[in-house]
């Protein structure tokens, strides 16, 4: 591919092909950080600099109040992940990073679905809710709010089921994850 300094025109196909290595799987990165201002900006900045899109991101306290846990997911089919992980390791406030293998990981996400449902539709929606072990957390004459917890797949499946009722809106937390077994994540 030509260089910016030279005269030759660049084709868009060439530009797209030059993206780099892809691993092809979704990555769940579990990042243990010092609970200090600006840490999230630094982490997000490393992804932004490379033009990576973060699919989900959650931040929360840990059992140690000095530390926070950032869990983020990115699509390895879209972005080469290895270089970013190495750069993340260099951040002074980052203590530990795990790129969690799906098979060895428990992940959960919480979602709230606001559904337009009255009359007969309501009963049907509540039946679906029960199958997914969801919880109705708000109800009015014309709507339901249902809470569902589970893997991303389960939440997406639930979404497909309730969409025909009239999905007003959906809120998702993004995944949190922990490694299976006794060892620390």
């Amino acid at each position, binding site marked *: 591919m030509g260089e910016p300094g030279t005269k030759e025109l660049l084709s868009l196909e060439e530009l797209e092909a030059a993206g780099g290595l892809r691993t092809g799987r979704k990555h769940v990165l579990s990042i243990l*950080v010092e609970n200090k201002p600006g840490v999230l900006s630094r982490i997000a900045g490393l992804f932004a600099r490379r033009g990576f899109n973060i699919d989900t991101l959650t931040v929360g306290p840990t059992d140690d109040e000095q530390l926070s846990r950032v869990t983020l997911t990115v699509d390895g089919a879209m972005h080469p992940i290895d270089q970013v992980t190495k750069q993340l390791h*260099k951040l*002074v406030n980052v203590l530990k990073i795990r790129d969690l293998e799906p098979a060895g990981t428990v992940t959960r996400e919480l979602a709230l679905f606001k559904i337009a449902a009255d009359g007969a539709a309501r009963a049907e929606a509540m039946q679906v809710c029960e199958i997914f072990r969801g919880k109705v957390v708000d109800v009015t004459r014309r709507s339901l709010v249902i809470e569902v917890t589970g893997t991303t797949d389960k939440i997406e499946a639930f979404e497909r089921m309730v969409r025909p009722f009239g999905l007003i809106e959906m809120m998702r937390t993004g995944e949190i994850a922990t490694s299976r077994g006794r060892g620390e994540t």
Partner: protein
Amino acid sequence: MRAVDAVMECLKAEGVDVVFGYPGGANLPTYDAFVDAGIRHVLVRHEAGGGHAAEGYARATGKVGVAFGTSGPGATNLVTPIVDAMMDSTPTVFITGQVRTDLLGTDGFQEADTIGITMPAVKHSWMIQHPLEIPRTIHEAFHVARSGRPGPVLVDIPVDLSRADIPYEPVTDLRLPGYQPTVEGNTKQIRQAAKALATARRPVIYAGGGVISASAAEELTAFATADRFPVTTTLMGLGGFPAPHDQWLGMLGMHGTRAANYAMDEADLICAVGARFDDRITGKLAEFAPRAKFIHIDVDPAEISKNVPAHIPIVGDAKHVLAKLVREYRALEGVDPSRLDAWWETIRGWREKHPLRYDDSADSEIKPQYMVQALYEATGGDAIVVNDVGQHQMWTAQYYHFAKPRRWIGSSGLGTMGFGLPAAMGAQVGCPDQTVVCLTGDGSVQMNAQELATCAQHGIPIKVFIMNNGYLGMVRQWQELFWDGRYSHVDMGSFPDFVKLAEAYGATGLRLEDKTTLVADMKSALATDGPVVVDVRVTREENTYPMIPAGQAARDMVG
């Protein structure tokens, strides 16, 4: 004690002997503390000059360079030096004033989000949130700046917090649980590298700025001479291996020697030490060193396999790793030095067939390449030479043969025009007994010429040699070669009159136009007291060769 006095105590405890800076509203308390602190402060004329001076000081001395600025524009003017220091791994501490905490985020007068603006360009930064954090933070800042892969750090101090009264006790324990650079290098990996080197038939050592940062020049020579390994370095690595040495191939890369680039192209094993396979080195990545396996030694794990996959990765500081590597190599039995005979034969062939060359003028006209050779002669090859960016920088790398580390200083990664003059000033402050030369271009020098006033006021006797061709020469060269000679905004004319400019600033100004007396004239300029600006008129349209055209491979070198 006032928090700002604690800052001064911390600086002293860190061994800081000079600060380059500029005062303003948000760092008034800090500047008040300078009055009694007993730390030398050099008042620059632009914060960028102060930042580059801190870089020049750090590069020349190996110590941490320090620059101060106020909030808002003071901080934004430091951005270029900060990015520059990041790209060239220069240990620097930037301390900026910030508006008072109740104004933060309100677009207060001279407020800028300094932490946010600089975040992608610092090794780390700290926003002070409580005055009691100040001493520990300053010490952590110095530790992070100088250890591991060195780099710039920034501490932003809101002006109200800097006025607090705090108890000060020297800080001895740092709290950086997430920061533990690997220095030593894995012994097993090092042993494996030694074995690979012992059987390689066409090995090359490719060394970079990491050798200079780690003060590993001696170890590099010991390693290279443990057998007869050919050595090339990047621009940042110049002086890391003595240029007069028989095993020296010259610099590699876009304007490197053919011997160095062809050796990389044909090598079967490349040992990269503190170098990062920058695009100016590799050219077309897919065709870079196609026959080689790679040993990659770097203190920064993120550099390893970033651009070129390493077969034997070694994370560690060049000094430690090379010392171990030499021991491991010497301990090997049955190494046959004659296996390299054919390789050296080939290299000698390239050297003889393709030495660096140019057509000298038949009359008194000064060719730019000759200007560098003349300066090499006039300085006895032993000056600290600080470059700006452009053709003159490449000619310096080619024709000034650096024998020692920390003798070549320039902006490499970022390629910052305007770096040279203030960096030379910083280098001179750090090394008052050395001859410090700023070899610059007529374009670059104008980007921070105001620091001549600083040099004159503080008696900083740098010698500025301007390679004046009246063009932005490197851009002109590319327009000539790759854009059909359509010159677009590269002609600088004969402005300003550098002799008068020098005099106006309180420096000595000279103009040299005659090749036949150039060395002698340069010597007398070097012998002149105080800062001197020498306007050397050179051939206007001369190209820097040889050259790997952009995006091509070493084999495609032209010129």
